[in-house]
C-alpha cells in the first residue's frame, strides 16, 4: 500500500496597517504616489536621521493582538535585522525579535463542520521595504521608497494547519478580524496582506516534522491553494525517490504553477539582530490595554449570531453579510431606516454581490448610502416600481448613489396601474399573437408567459406584472 502523508503548514502573514503616516516618520502612507514623493531622511536611511514611533501603530498592533487572544508584551522593544538589499536603504530593517508586542494567541477556524484552533506564536511590528521595479529598457531595477517605512505587523502561526482549506479559513478569519478593527484593508492583490507558507510533509502518524520550505510571492487565495498543492506533491516526490527535502525559500510562479528556490543553503541567512539603539522601549500598562479592549468592535461571530436573532435572517444570509464590516454596516443602517431586514439582505446578497463580482470590486469598495437603498425598498414595497425596474435603479444607486425617488420620477419609471391603458395594450397584443392565444386556450399554460413578456415590453417594463397576468387571464377566458 502506498504511504500516506500529512501536510504540516505554518503561516507568516504580513499586514500593512491603515495608518496615515509611516511607522517612524511623518511621511504619508498613501498608495500610488509618484516615485519617492513620500520620502524623508528617516525612511531613506540618511545618516544622522532618527526614527520616532507612531503611536497608532502600537495601538493597532495591540488591538489585533487582543482580538487574536494573544498576551500583550508589557515591556517590548525593537531590534535591527541586518541585510543588504536595494529595497532597504538603511541596510537594516527595524523589527522585533526578542520582545514582540503580542504572543501566545489563537484564532478559531471552521472547515466543513469541524472547528479547530490555530495557535499564534507571536506578532511583531516592523517597517516595510521599498519597491523594486524592473526596467525592461536598460535591464536595471528602479527603486521607489514610498513604501519604505510603511508599518506592518507580521503574524506568525504555529504549524497547526493541515490543508489548503484550513490555510484559507485561517487567512479569511485573520482578514475579517483585522478589517473589522479597521487596522488594514487586507487586500492580497495590492499587497496589504501577504502570506508566506511554511510547509513540510511527514508520514501519517509520525510525530516529528519533516524538513520545511518557505514559499513566497502568493498574492491570492487561489495562488496559495495551488502553491500548497504543488509543494506538497513536490516534497512527496522527493521523499518517495529517496531524496532529501532541502530547507530553502522558494518563489511561487502562479502562471507556471511551479516554484523555484530563491536562496540557496550556502547563502544562509544571518541577520545579526541586535537591540535597536535609536528607539526607546515601549511600556504597556494595564490601563492602556483596557482602553484598547474597550474600543474593540463587535466581531463577526457575535454579529452573525445577533443578526439571526435580532433581524430574523437565515444563517446563510448572515454569513455573507457579516463577511465584511462595510456590508454589515450598510445592512444595519438600511434595516433601521426601512425595517425590512430580509429585503435589505436580499439586495446585498444578490444584486450587490453580482455587481461587485462583475466590476471586480471588494465589499469595502461599496459607496452607496443606506438611505438610498432604503428608499428603493420602500418604492418596491409600495408597488410604485416593479422588480425589474428596481434592479435597473439599483445599478444606478450602486454606481452613483442616485436618489431613487428622483431617478424614478425623472425617468418616468413608475409602474402603470392604469387599467384602461393596460387593457388597450393587451387587446393589441392578443390580436397580434393568435397562435399563442390559441395555444393558451388549448391548455398550454406556458403560452401565457410569452404574452406577458410582450406586454411588458410594449409598456417599456413599467407595467405591474401581477396585474398583467390577471388581466390577460380574464380577457382570454
Amino acid at each position, binding site marked *: 500500500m502506498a504511504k500516506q502523508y500529512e501536510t504540516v503548514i505554518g503561516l507568516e502573514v504580513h499586514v500593512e496597517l491603515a*495608518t*496615515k*503616516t509611516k511607522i517612524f*516618520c*511623518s*511621511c*504619508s502612507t498613501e498608495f500610488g504616489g*509618484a*516615485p*519617492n*514623493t*513620500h*520620502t*524623508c*531622511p528617516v525612511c*531613506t536611511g540618511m545618516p544622522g536621521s532618527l526614527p*520616532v*514611533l*507612531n*503611536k*497608532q*501603530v*502600537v495601538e493597532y498592533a495591540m488591538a489585533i493582538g487582543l482580538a487574536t487572544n494573544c498576551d500583550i508584551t508589557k*515591556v517590548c*522593544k525593537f531590534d535591527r535585522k*541586518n541585510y*543588504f*538589499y*536595494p*529595497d532597504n536603504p538603511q541596510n537594516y530593517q527595524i523589527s522585533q525579535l*526578542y*520582545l514582540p508586542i503580542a504572543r501566545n494567541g489563537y484564532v478559531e477556524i471552521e472547515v466543513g463542520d469541524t472547528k479547530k484552533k490555530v495557535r499564534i506564536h507571536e506578532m511583531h511590528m516592523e517597517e516595510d521595504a521599498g519597491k*523594486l*521595479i*524592473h*526596467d525592461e529598457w536598460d*535591464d*536595471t*531595477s*528602479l*527603486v*521607489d*521608497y514610498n513604501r519604505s517605512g510603511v508599518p506592518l505587523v507580521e503574524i506568525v502561526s504555529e504549524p497547526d494547519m493541515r490543508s489548503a482549506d484550513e490555510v484559507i479559513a485561517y487567512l479569511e478569519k485573520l482578514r475579517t478580524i483585522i478589517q473589522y478593527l479597521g487596522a488594514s484593508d487586507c487586500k492580497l492583490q495590492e499587497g496589504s496582506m501577504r502570506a508566506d507558507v511554511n510547509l513540510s510533509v511527514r508520514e501519517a502518524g509520525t510525530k516529528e516534522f519533516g524538513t520545511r520550505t518557505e514559499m513566497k510571492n502568493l498574492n491570492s487565495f487561489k495562488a496559495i491553494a495551488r502553491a500548497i498543492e504543488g509543494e506538497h506533491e513536490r516534497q512527496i516526490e522527493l521523499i518517495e525517490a529517496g531524496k532529501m527535502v532541502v530547507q530553502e525559500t522558494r518563489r511561487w510562479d502562479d502562471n507556471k504553477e511551479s516554484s523555484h528556490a530563491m536562496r540557496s543553503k550556502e547563502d544562509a541567512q*544571518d541577520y*545579526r539582530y541586535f*537591540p535597536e*539603539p535609536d*528607539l*526607546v*522601549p*515601549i*511600556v504597556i500598562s494595564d490601563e492602556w490595554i483596557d482602553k484598547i479592549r474597550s474600543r474593540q468592535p463587535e466581531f463577526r461571530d457575535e454579529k452573525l449570531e445577533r443578526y439571526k436573532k435580532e433581524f430574523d435572517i437565515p444563517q446563510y444570509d448572515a454569513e455573507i453579510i457579516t463577511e465584511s464590516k462595510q456590508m454589515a454596516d450598510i445592512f444595519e443602517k438600511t434595516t433601521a431606516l426601512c425595517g425590512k431586514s430580509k429585503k435589505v439582505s436580499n439586495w446585498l446578497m444578490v444584486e450587490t454581490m453580482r455587481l461587485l463580482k462583475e466590476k471586480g470590486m471588494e465589499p469595502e469598495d461599496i459607496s452607496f448610502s443606506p438611505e438610498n437603498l432604503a428608499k428603493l425598498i420602500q418604492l418596491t414595497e409600495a408597488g410604485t416600481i416593479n422588480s425589474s425596474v428596481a434592479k435597473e435603479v439599483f445599478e444606478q444607486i450602486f454606481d452613483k448613489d442616485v436618489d431613487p425617488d428622483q431617478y424614478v420620477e425623472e425617468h418616468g419609471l413608475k409602474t402603470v396601474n392604469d387599467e384602461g391603458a393596460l387593457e388597450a395594450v393587451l387587446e393589441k397584443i392578443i390580436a397580434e399573437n393568435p397562435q399563442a392565444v390559441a395555444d393558451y386556450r388549448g391548455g398550454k399554460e406556458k403560452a401565457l408567459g410569452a404574452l406577458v413578456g410582450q406586454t411588458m415590453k410594449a409598456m417599456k417594463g413599467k407595467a405591474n406584472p401581477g396585474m398583467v397576468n390577471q388581466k390577460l387571464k380574464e380577457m382570454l377566458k
Partner: protein
Amino acid sequence: MANKISDETIEYVGILAKLELSGQEKEDAKADMEKMLDYIDTLNELDTEGIEPMSHVFPVHNVFREDVVVNGDGSEDTLANAPLKKDQSFKVPKTIG
C-alpha cells in the same frame, strides 16, 4: 584569555558585510576583532545573576509621535545624491525580489 578568530569566520563576516579584504586586511581585521572580544570578556567577570537584561541605556520609554502627515514631497532631496536615477527613482543593477 585571548579569543581566536579563524580564517573561516573572517571570510564569513566579510561576506555578510559585503567587503572584499586582501590577505593583510584580513589579518588586521582578525587582530582587531580578537581585541574587541577580549574587551567584551571583561563583562563576563561580573556576576549578573538575577539582573534583568537591559534593553536601552536611557531611562526613557514610550516616546511616540501622533499619526499626522507633516512631510510633503521629499523626492528632490531624496534623489539629490543618487549616483544614477531614472523616472524619479534610484537606478540600480538588476535585482530580483
